[in-house]
């Protein structure tokens, strides 16, 4: 019998974050270049080619892997930006590229046959037929599954494919199928698919009013806070809205995904890797989250039958969670 294993994949929005992740126990880090070729296209974030080179050197020297996210959908006018990024990834010795667009996968498979391909969560593959499509066509070796399936559905999916499965374990929670959400461009013109951003900072306005602090996105009121409430970033699906006279989080509460308690189950299922969300977060976040998850995974791999979530882990993760709230998301069926 094979020993249990599961990779910890941590976010690196900058070189300091990358080093922090590597030093605190990540098996892999994932990063993006400094443009719209990845789905965290924020000012001040991400890597130049030189930075990426240093990041790859640092990680490889410590025996860790680096994955490059090129997971937006190339727009025709900028096609070359995406293919250049693929060429750079191969040149830099990236351990894999994470892609969503079939045209780009075809380019990568033809031009750099040795470059390992992962299917991004932005590829919206929620069933094995879709995953096998990318595997047969382009040889993708791992798929990151959207945060919409229940655990039993993930297991069913795994029975139908030989492609490795990576799941989101912690961090910001998309309630919509990734790659199939245009809410942000409907409100602001820019979306993850087209520009690598959701609810972009340039569209955000904060206003103190007699009714409370208001957050707006391109003028649209996303939420309004009383003096005793913590205000959160106005991600548009996490605002409070009015449906038939009732004001509530009609789509999703501001909360972070946290699947620590599912860890033994994920290991048993043979999940290849757990992904931590948050390239837009600080190195301090990366440090805290990586440390906790490293400890938890090591405990679980030693003996998954006796694994128990430590309250101190939950407390640490709670501090860096959105709205200080945590959820199992769709993995837990009744959430739906």
């Amino acid at each position, binding site marked *: 019998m094979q020993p249990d294993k599961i990779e910890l994949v941590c976010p690196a929005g900058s070189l300091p974050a990358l080093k922090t992740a590597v030093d605190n126990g990540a098996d892999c880090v994932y990063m993006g270049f400094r443009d719209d070729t990845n789905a965290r296209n924020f000012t001040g974030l991400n890597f130049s080619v030189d930075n990426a080179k240093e990041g790859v050197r640092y990680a490889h020297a410590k025996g860790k892997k680096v994955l490059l996210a090129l997971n937006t*959908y190339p727009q*025709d006018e900028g096609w070359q930006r995406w293919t250049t990024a693929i060429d750079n990834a191969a040149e830099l010795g990236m351990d894999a590229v994470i892609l969503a667009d079939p*045209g780009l996968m075809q380019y990568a498979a033809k031009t750099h046959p040795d470059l390992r391909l992962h299917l991004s969560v932005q590829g*919206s593959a929620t069933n094995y037929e879709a995953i096998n499509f990318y595997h047969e066509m382009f040889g993708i070796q791992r798929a990151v599954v959207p945060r919409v399936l*229940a655990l039993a559905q993930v297991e069913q999916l795994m029975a139908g494919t030989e492609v490795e499965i990576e799941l989101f374990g912690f961090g910001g929670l998309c309630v919509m*199928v990734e790659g199939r959400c245009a809410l942000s461009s409907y409100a602001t013109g820019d979306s993850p698919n087209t520009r690598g951003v959701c609810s972009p900072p340039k569209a955000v306005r904060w206003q103190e009013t007699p009714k409370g602090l208001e957050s707006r996105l391109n003028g649209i009121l996303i939420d309004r806070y009383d003096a005793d409430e913590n205000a959160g970033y106005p991600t548009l699906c996490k605002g409070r809205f*009015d*449906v038939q006279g009732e*004001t509530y989080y009609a789509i999703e509460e501001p909360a972070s995904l946290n699947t620590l308690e599912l860890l033994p189950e994920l290991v048993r299922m043979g999940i290849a890797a757990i992904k931590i969300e948050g390239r837009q977060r600080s190195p301090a976040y990366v440090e805290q989250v990586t440390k906790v998850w490293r400890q938890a995974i090591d405990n679980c791999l030693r003996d998954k039958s006796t694994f128990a979530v430590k309250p101190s882990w939950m407390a640490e993760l709670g501090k860096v969670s959105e709205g200080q709230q945590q959820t199992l998301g769709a993995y837990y069926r009744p959430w739906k």
Partner: protein
Amino acid sequence: MKLALGPVLYYWDRDTMLSFYDEMADAPVDIIYLGETVCSRRHLLRLQDYLDMAERLAAAGKEVVISTQTLIESEYDVKTLRKIAENENFRVEANDMGAVRLLANKMPFVAGSTLNIFNPQTLDLLAGLGASRWVMPVEMSREALASVLRNRQSGSETEVFAYGRLPLAFSARCFTARHHNLQKDDCQFKCLDYEDGLALKTREGQPFLTLNGIQTQSALVHNLIGELDTLQDAGIDVVRVSPQAHHTGEILRLFREGMEQRLTSAQALAQIEGLMPAASCNGYWHGKPGLDFIRNNPLATV
């Protein structure tokens, strides 16, 4: 240009659906997309009912396409998908890459808008697998479309979502059930109560989105009836109207008259306004936020 009717995105009861499609058999529309694309719990019409309806509409001279569910989650969903892909009589609109795998190199198919075809490389690839038509993503602008069509090598027909509340997002969560404090698995089929979806407004009353089970739509109605000339110029082959609970037949008639230049774009726009469940938007087509509305100026040069 041809005129198409998209699949009904809402959950209407069986009699309503049957009489709706009886009416559509006589409507001035060339292509009819049929099938449940939103939620597998909606079961008042089964696949066989849709196939029977397809036969009747085909006999009435319509081109019928069976649309697949967009979010395929369970083995049950995959089985339904397989049955659709194996049907021998009707072309299929693939709304997920799983459907593409089942159809590729077997029979011509329509590549649906959720396949995210944003560049000529991906379009050519899907055309090579048998996509005889593709529906551009709702987010795509006229300019981005022009670039794709200029640089592609293949020749599939191009379709655009031209009228209706925009299908913007899909989730595992059912927002209609959530509104009623019900779990999705025990949703009591609340979608039946909202023939055009459930309105979501901001806290200052601005209509923003529409909840339709696991699908989130725009509150405003994406409406390109004032843009038929620019659609024609852009090389669009098929214009899609998405069904709404009332007046769909009249809306199709206005689109038809606009396409045949029996109405000017200003006339068509003026006449359609009274038939709409909400105001118009068309920002996406102009490369703006989707909820914007830009009035087509027929005197402006392109």
